[in-house]
């Protein structure tokens, strides 16, 4: 189970203080599928980074499977990311000079898995996302959807309990986006906790639960089934909702 209490993340820019998170409280059950929504700058990516141990909260507590992670040192955080968390990014972040299978192998290098073992596991992981025939392709030889599937294979190869995805379909056309969402749903069905940051109501609709953020705070919690239109989601005036829909459809 994941639990955050009174989470603040404050950036100091010169004399100004910018609060990306202002006292966030949230609990996510094991095996839950949660979507975090909200307009740009609402703090949803910051929350995801804190959950992923990439960023440390300025204040507050973060319990990951009962352990307070907020106080861990760099090495322990790296170890946590390595063993317990898988990241999926909007822009894939594959290493361009490495082949698909080498990209998937990468986390296992840092975990010290033996080369033979590693290769087998990477191949299995690629097979699970349907890319067995693309093992030796480099990222520039893959389509966007294929790249994201390689990234998903990489995020799951260490078999982490928690998967974090930041706008996983943001750079994809609707068909490959749907494929990626199906894959994520499959992984969730396999028992993993899944947290997805998204703008896209159609993505959020597939989640068990949706958390809506605004100005660094959680302003609304609803079930995935209840996500109907953007207006109800962001609690905006109809005019603003239209503007938000227009900007949100473009990107982050």
């Amino acid at each position, binding site marked *: 189970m994941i639990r955050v209490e009174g989470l603040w993340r404050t950036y100091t820019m010169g004399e100004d203080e910018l609060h990306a998170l202002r006292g966030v409280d949230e609990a996510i059950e094991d095996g839950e599928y949660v979507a975090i929504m909200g307009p740009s700058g609402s703090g949803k990516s910051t929350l995801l*980074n804190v959950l*992923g141990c*990439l*960023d440390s909260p300025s204040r507050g507590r973060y319990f990951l499977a009962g352990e307070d992670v907020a106080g861990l040192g*760099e*090495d322990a955080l*790296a*170890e946590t*990311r*390595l*063993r317990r968390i898988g*990241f999926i*990014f909007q822009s894939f*972040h594959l*290493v*361009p*000079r*490495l082949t698909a299978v080498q990209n998937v192998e*990468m*986390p296992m*290098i*840092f*975990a*010290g898995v*033996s*080369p033979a073992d590693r290769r087998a596991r990477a191949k299995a992981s690629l097979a699970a996302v349907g890319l067995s025939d693309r093992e030796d392709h480099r990222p520039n030889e893959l389509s966007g959807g294929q790249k994201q599937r390689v990234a998903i294979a*990489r995020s799951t190869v*260490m078999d982490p309990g928690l998967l974090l995805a930041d706008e996983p379909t943001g750079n994809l056309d609707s068909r490959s986006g749907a494929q990626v969402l199906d894959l994520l749903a499959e992984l969730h069905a396999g028992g993993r906790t899944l947290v997805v940051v998204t703008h896209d109501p159609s993505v959020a609709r597939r989640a068990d639960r949706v958390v809506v953020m605004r100005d660094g705070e959680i302003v609304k919690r609803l079930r995935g089934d209840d996500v109907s239109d953007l207006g109800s989601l962001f609690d905006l005036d109809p005019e603003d909702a239209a503007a938000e829909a227009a900007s949100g459809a473009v990107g982050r």
Partner: protein
Amino acid sequence: MSFRDLFGFALSAVLQNRRRSGLSLVGVVIGVVAVLSLTAIGEGALRYVTSQFASLGSSIVNVSPGKNETTGAMPHGIGGVPNDLTLQDAIVIERRVQEIRAAVPVSVSTDVVSHLQRARRGPVVGATADFERLQHLDLATGSFLPESELDRGASVVVLGQAVARELFDEANPLGATVRIGSWRMRVIGVLRGRGQQLGMDVDEVVFIPVAASMRMANKSSVSRIMLELWPRADQDAVIEQVKQLLIARHDEEDFTLISQDAVLSSLSSILGILTLVVAGIASVSLAVAGIGIMNVMLVSVSERRDEVGLLKAVGANQRQILFIFLLEAALLSCAGGLLGLAIGTLLVAIGDLAYPTVDLVAPVWAVVSVIALSLGTGIVFGVLPAWRASRLDPVAALQGH
């Protein structure tokens, strides 16, 4: 995390940007080549000097007039010193010091040597029969100065190769008479050509009996006395013995005793220091190359921020990232070092072929230290970029700003 895996990862990064990696290599290559070739030249000079001394025979001690405080300096030739060295000194030394095989008085002057219409001015060396063995002289024809009483100078002369050719062309000079100054001398031998040896060109010299030389110059003293020691003689003991003997004869120490060994060792140490200095200057270029590597690595780190962010996101810790980038820098400098070693060795080999008189070989210490130095350079100058990479904030790095 195994070394092999990280090595592969670093290697792939180096190979990704071949041109940039290549350019940063060039700096290291130049540095290594400079160190190798300069030390090879230094070492070659050292070997050359050593072999020249060896050809003179190392168990030779020179007695020259005047007191020299610095042992390394060459003795002066003719000087107005109070108590000159005499033929008698040489005779006494040879007779009294058992470990001395021969004491050869040498008298050096410059005079005009002529035959018929031809004349040339050059060094005239008065010596004895033993001088031939002492200096490893080879005769092309005839014989060297005859064995005789020291003070009985016959009117005979042995010509150096160049002198003989100039005065006689292809004609056989044996038995002919040449004039040295106003004295007439019969040619009894011609030396085989040998060329320059430690500053004296034997080909340009004419040799006459030492007594004749002194008579011609109207002198009672010799320029120096060369002492040839028996093999395995205790050089220091002989020097001490000769010193006491001469002090007893002269009432004071108005002469200088220098062994070839002493001259050789001081020359060697001078050359050794010079080689080190030159190598040191050359290694400055290696340091500059290190800065080049640092620059390339800094660019590489800032270009691959998102990659570093990703490495952190998938669970690489700071130590591992530091190691990857250090390894990259080490790979660059090591490749540069090896390439420099190959090119440097080739250049030295070519130089060795082009100048056969000097034995050009880069000394082992230079090879080992230049490789260690280039590797060390990469690591030292790679620390800052690697440290930067390891400290990158992963969130900012992944966002690309």
